[in-house]
């Protein structure tokens, strides 16, 4: 068994996915996932995320043959074998999960990206928000904070909105006073949240349109966890929005997949099926992992 890790060092969270591949070929399987807050020390975060993933599967760092890093801190991971940008890896991960979709939207803490896919998950074109963090995950985190709602609940709450209240300010910071105004004029939290999602969906659809969007899309990144955002996007784009489970791990998955491909091209690095059997049954099963699509559905 050969283990390959993809580590996505994001601005907010660092995520790791470990894949197992047998020398017999066939689809690689997902062995483990793990995440930690990124914080100030990027390499350390990468290591911690990897270890937290490996732990559950009873594996150690030395079992991992190849490490592909991605995300804004990809160059900071000293123990990587290759670094890949989060756009390339996000595209690959999304494509593997939903091969029929031609487009990917990735909303993380500070960035929003629209990616158009080419054949076999290749990046055909992409657009990112630049310079201004308006409309990304941290916008929602802030809004949730003033509204005193937990981040896990914002998405579901927004689904209850009856008459969404639009937010005109694009700036996460200036929107604050607008939100406060709404609160004081009696607008419900649900309606405010849905209004925020609508305005984020507007901005995202602008980016998407610049990649010549048509058909349906895969929505990844931490914000894809929020049902309100998914609904707002479906509303705006009038199309199906595919969301993988654990959407924030998709870049890490893609990096691991791309890493595996590089590894297969390097002669002599794939180890023989040695480690299996050295552990007891449960762990062995864990180390076998799950098929990718099942791990993300």
């Amino acid at each position, binding site marked *: 068994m050969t283990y390959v890790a993809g580590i996505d060092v994001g*601005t907010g969270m660092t995520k790791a996915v470990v894949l197992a591949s047998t020398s017999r070929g066939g689809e690689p399987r997902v062995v483990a996932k793990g995440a930690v807050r*990124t*914080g*100030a*020390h*990027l390499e350390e975060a990468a290591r911690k995320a990897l270890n937290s993933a490996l732990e559950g599967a009873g594996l150690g760092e030395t079992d991992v043959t190849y490490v592909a890093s991605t995300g*804004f801190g990809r160059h*900071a991971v000293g123990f990587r074998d290759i670094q890949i940008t989060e756009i390339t890896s996000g595209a690959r991960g999304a494509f593997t999960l939903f091969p029929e979709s031609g487009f990917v939207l990735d909303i993380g803490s*500070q960035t929003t990206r629209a990616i158009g896919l080419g054949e076999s998950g290749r990046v055909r074109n992409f657009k990112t928000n630049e*310079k*201004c*963090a*308006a409309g*990304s995950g*941290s*916008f929602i985190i802030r809004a949730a904070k003033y509204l005193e709602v937990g981040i896990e609940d914002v998405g579901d709450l927004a689904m209850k909105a009856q008459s969404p209240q639009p937010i005109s*300010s694009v*700036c*996460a*910071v*200036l929107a*604050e*006073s607008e939100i*406060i*105004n709404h*609160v*004081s004029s009696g607008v419900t939290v649900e309606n405010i949240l849905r209004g925020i999602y609508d305005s984020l969906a507007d901005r995202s659809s602008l980016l998407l349109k610049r990649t010549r969007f048509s058909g349906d899309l895969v929505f990844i990144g931490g914000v894809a966890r929020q049902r309100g955002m998914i609904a707002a996007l479906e509303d705006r784009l009038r199309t199906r929005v595919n969301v993988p489970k654990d959407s924030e791990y998709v870049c890490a998955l893609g990096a691991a997949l791309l890493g595996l491909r590089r590894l297969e091209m390097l002669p002599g690095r794939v180890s023989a099926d040695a480690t299996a059997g050295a552990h007891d049954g449960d762990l062995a099963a864990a180390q076998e992992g799950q098929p990718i699509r099942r791990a993300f559905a």
Partner: protein
Amino acid sequence: MRFAAGVDVGSTQTKAAIVEQNAGPVAFAIVDTGASVTRAAENAFNVACREASLQPADVGFVVGTGYGRYKIAFGNAQMTEISCHARGAHALFPNTRTVIDMGGQDSKAISVDDNGHVLDFVMNDKCAAGTGRFLANAAEVLGLGLAEFGALSAKATHPVKITTVCTVFVESDILSYLALGKKPEDIVRGVHLAIAKRTVSLARRVPLEPSVTLTGGVSRNEGMVAALEEVLGVPLQVSPQAHFAGALGAALHALDRVDASFESGVWRTAV
């Protein structure tokens, strides 16, 4: 009636001031603006009245200012925070010719004449970049209180260069510097210098003549004061009441109104 009040409803905090005829300020109050602008204004006003041992009815005229000025239910008139900061700064330091006001979500520079009348002014654009909120956010990322944050700046030896003044993006800038092993004080100083440069560049759009008075909540941040002085190359006048300059100015404008000239045409009534 001898008393007049000004209420400055800011994005972060609401400030009130009461002044007495021929005597000057008698009370100040500050409350968090929070969710209800109207309530915050009332609270601040009531606290100030209590402070001055007055009943609200003893106050002859109330001028509202700040971004929430139109939401003050009991105010008699509104004026912009620009006219009020100018007047307040002039009251605190009569030699003021330039006022720099740094609040929670905007910064402005005002050029005033020797009566405290506005000659010219500029405000920052539609972006919270480089404002008080930016500082508060940066402090939070570093896990510091605002007071500590300001004070730490003085210990810096090698200030870092901050690339963004976007309130959100600064987080990752700060985190990358911490990752590089930079000392918090050098980062803090870098943050202050970045904002100071932005503010001074804004302020240069008006005739930046001495004496320069700093008003608004950010004036309580000593690190910011030092950074501004460095970039400007002139000392700043900072009063302990600087945070109340807008409210004070509004109160003084209100006092004019108590006095006399209802018909002078200077005043707009509530819209």
